[in-house]
C-alpha cells in the first residue's frame, strides 16, 4: 500500500524541487553574466536568421555549407525565425547566457545601442581592409571605434512604376518636385489614381515619405539630428516637410487607408495605382512575367541646394558577445564579408539586392539593379530607414502622427506637438 504513496510523494517533491530551483534562478530583471569559459572548446555555431523566404533560407544554408568546407572544425546550424518575432526576441537572445552565436541584423541605431550595452562581439578583425565604402564602414562601427557589424547587402527605395503603364498613359519620369506634382495631376486627369499608400497593416510606409521629404528639404544632417532627439518635431523645418507633403495628399489613393500591403501592391501591379514609394521588395513580390516591366525613379528633387541623400538599408550579420565560440563566430563574419560569399548569397536568394562589398559583382544583373546601384553610388549621403536610424518606439510615434496628418492635414500644428511629446516620452522609456 505504501509504495504508490511514497512514489507519488517522491514525484511531487521532485516537481516542487524543480519549481524552487527555477524560482531561485529566475528574477525578471536580472541579466545573466556572460557564460564562463567552459573547459572544452565549443565547435557548435548557431546562426539565427530572419530570412524566412524560400530563397533567403536556402541562401543562408548555402553560406553555412560553404563556410564549413573551409572550416571543417565547426558545426554550424541554422535557426530561422519569422522577422517580427525575431525582432522582438533579439534583446532576450543577446542577453542569454548561451546565445545564438551569429544573428542577421541591420546597420543603424539599434545595433549601436546593443554595442553600447556590450552585447556585440568585436568584429574588427573580421572586417576587410578594402571593399567597403567609407559610409558602410562607418555604419558598421560603434562609438568606441570597434567594428560591430558586417554588412553583406543593401537595397534601395524609389518611386516604383510599371514601364508599360507609363507608356500607355504617355507620361515620363519626373526629376523635380514640380514635375512630380504635374505628373500626379496628369494621371488623375486620365482617371488613374497616382500614388499607392496602403496603410491598413503597414502604416510604417508613411516613414518612407517622411524620410525622403525631410532628406530633400532639410538634408541628411538635420534628419539624423532629428531622429536622435537633438532637434524637435515642433521645429518649423519639420512643419515645412508636412506642408510640402500636403501638396500630394490629394493624389494618394483614398482607399489606401483600408488596404493591406498585399492588396495595395496588387492594385499597383494591376495599374490601378500608378506609383508606389517603396523598397525593392515591392518588385520582388511580383510574378516573373511582370518583373521586367518594373521600373523606378529617384524621389524627386525639391531643393537643388540640398546634397542628395538616398535610403539604402544595409543588412548583414552581428555576433553575440556572449558566444561560447568567439573564434568560430569571427571566422564566419570574416567569411560573409568576402565577395564570394556575398555573390553566393545573392545568387541563391534571387532577391533584388546589391552586395555591400564593392568587389562583389551582382550575379544577376538587371537594368533595374544597375539603375539602383548607380543611384545609391552617386548619392552624397546614405541613410538607413526611419526605424533603423532610430527605433521602433520612435516609429510608433511617427505613424501615429503621419496617418493622422493624412486624414486631417489642417491639424498639422497640433500633430507635431503631439509627435514631439510622444517621441520624448518614448526616449525617456
Amino acid at each position: 500500500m505504501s509504495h504508490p504513496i511514497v512514489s507519488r510523494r517522491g514525484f511531487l517533491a521532485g516537481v516542487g524541487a524543480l519549481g524552487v530551483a527555477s524560482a531561485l534562478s529566475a528574477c525578471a530583471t536580472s541579466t545573466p553574466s556572460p557564460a564562463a569559459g567552459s573547459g572544452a572548446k565549443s565547435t557548435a555555431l548557431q546562426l539565427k536568421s530572419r530570412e524566412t523566404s524560400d530563397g533567403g533560407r536556402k541562401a543562408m544554408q548555402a553560406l553555412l555549407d560553404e563556410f564549413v568546407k573551409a572550416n571543417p572544425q565547426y558545426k554550424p546550424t541554422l535557426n530561422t525565425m519569422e522577422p517580427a518575432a525575431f525582432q522582438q526576441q533579439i534583446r532576450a537572445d543577446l542577453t542569454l547566457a548561451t546565445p545564438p552565436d551569429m544573428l542577421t541584423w541591420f546597420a543603424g541605431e539599434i545595433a549601436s545601442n546593443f554595442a553600447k550595452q556590450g552585447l556585440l562581439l568585436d568584429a574588427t578583425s573580421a572586417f576587410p581592409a578594402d571593399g567597403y565604402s567609407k559610409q558602410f564602414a562607418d555604419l558598421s562601427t560603434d562609438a568606441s571605434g570597434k567594428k560591430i557589424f558586417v554588412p553583406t547587402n543593401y537595397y534601395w527605395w524609389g518611386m516604383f512604376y510599371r514601364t508599360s503603364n507609363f507608356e500607355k498613359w504617355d507620361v515620363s519620369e519626373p526629376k523635380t518636385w514640380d514635375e512630380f506634382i504635374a505628373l500626379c495631376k496628369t494621371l488623375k486627369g486620365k482617371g488613374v489614381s497616382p500614388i499607392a499608400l496602403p496603410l491598413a497593416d503597414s502604416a510604417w510606409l508613411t516613414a518612407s515619405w517622411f524620410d525622403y521629404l525631410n532628406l530633400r528639404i532639410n538634408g541628411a544632417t538635420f534628419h539624423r539630428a532629428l531622429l536622435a532627439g537633438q532637434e524637435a518635431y515642433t521645429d518649423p523645418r519639420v512643419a515645412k516637410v508636412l506642408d510640402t507633403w500636403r501638396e500630394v495628399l490629394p493624389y494618394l489613393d483614398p482607399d489606401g487607408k483600408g488596404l493591406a500591403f498585399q492588396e495595395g501592391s496588387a492594385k499597383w501591379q494591376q495599374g490601378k495605382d500608378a506609383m508606389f514609394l517603396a523598397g525593392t521588395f515591392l518588385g520582388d513580390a511580383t510574378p516573373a512575367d511582370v518583373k521586367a516591366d518594373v521600373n523606378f525613379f529617384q524621389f524627386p528633387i525639391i531643393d537643388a541646394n540640398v546634397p542628395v541623400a538616398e535610403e539604402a538599408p544595409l543588412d548583414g550579420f552581428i555576433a553575440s558577445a556572449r558566444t561560447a565560440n568567439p573564434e568560430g563566430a569571427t571566422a564566419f563574419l570574416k567569411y560573409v564579408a568576402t565577395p564570394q560569399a556575398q555573390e553566393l548569397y545573392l545568387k541563391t536568394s534571387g532577391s533584388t539586392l546589391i552586395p555591400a562589398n564593392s568587389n562583389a559583382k551582382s550575379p544577376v544583373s538587371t537594368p533595374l539593379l544597375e539603375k539602383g546601384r548607380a543611384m545609391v553610388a552617386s548619392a552624397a549621403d546614405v541613410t538607413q530607414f526611419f526605424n533603423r536610424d532610430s527605433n521602433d518606439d520612435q516609429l510608433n510615434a511617427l505613424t501615429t502622427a503621419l496617418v493622422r496628418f493624412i486624414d486631417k492635414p489642417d491639424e498639422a500644428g497640433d500633430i507635431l506637438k503631439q509627435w514631439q511629446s510622444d517621441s520624448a516620452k518614448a526616449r525617456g522609456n
Partner: protein
Amino acid sequence: MAAVPKAVSRGGPGALSVGVRRGSRETLVLLAFVLIPFGLEMFWTFWPALNSVYISLTQWDGIAPPVFVGLDNYARMWSDETFRTALRNTVIWLVLFGGLSVLGGLGLALLLDKPRKGIGVYRAIFFLPVVFSMVVTALVWRMIFQPDGVVNGLLAAVGLEDQARIWLGEPETALYALIVPALWRQVGYIMVLFLAGLKTVDPLLHEAAKVDGATAFERFRHVTLPQLRPITTVVLAVTVIDALRSFDIVWALTKGGPYHSSELLSTYQFSTGLLGSQLGYGSALAVVIFLLTVGTIVVYLVRSLRDEESA
C-alpha cells in the same frame, strides 16, 4: 486550509499508535496537495505578476539595468492622451460588446429554446463563429470591411453610396467596426450558456403563470429571469473578462489604429511593452488592466453572492 486539521484528527483517539502514524502520513500527503499547487501557482502566476508590478516602478528597456522611478509611469498615464483614448475605448467596448452580447445571446437563446423542426441547424449556425479562430474571423471581416468589400457593396446596391466608408481606416468608425465581428462571435457563445440555463427553468411554473393570466412578458420577467440567475452570474463574469481581455480581433484588424483611435488598453500595453522597448510603462499599463479586471469581477461577485445570501 481548513482541510488540514480535520485530516489530522481523522485517525481518531481509539487506535492511537497506528492512527498517529497513518494520520501523519495522510497529513503530509494532504499538505503536499495543498502546498505544491500553491507553490506552483505562486511561481507561475503570482511571482511573474509581482515582478511586473516591480517592473512598472522602473524605467527599463529590457537590456540595461532597470532604473527605479517610483510611480512616474503611473503619473505619465494622466498626461498620456493615448492612454485616455485606450481607457475610454475599453469602457465603450465593455458596455457595447458586453451589453449587446448578453442581450443578443439571451434573445437568441429564448428564440431557439423551444424544440422545433430543424432547431439544431439554427443553433449550429449561431454557434459556428465560436469555432473559428479569431485570426480567421479577422481575415473574413477584413474582406467584408474593405473599401470595395461587402458592406460598401450592399450600401451601393440600396442607393446609399454616400454612406460608404473605409470602415476600419477612419477613426470615427474603426472601433465600432471592430465590435461587430467580436459580437458576431460572442453572441453564439452566450446563447449556448443561456440555452443550458433555460433547460433548468421549471415548465410547471410557466403553466401556473399562464393559468393565472400572466402575459408572455410577465412570465419572462417573473418566472424565467429569476431562475436564470445562477447562469447570469456566470455569463456576466465571463463577459466582463472577455471584454477586458479583447485583443486578438483588434490587433488582427487595425493594431489599434488609425492613430490610436481603436486602441484598447490591451493593445496599447502590447505595443508599448512588448513591441517597443518601454517595459516599465508597458508593465504599468498591464497592472492597470489587471486592477480593472479584478476590481470589476470582485465587485460583481461580492454583490451577487450577497444577493444570493439575502434571497
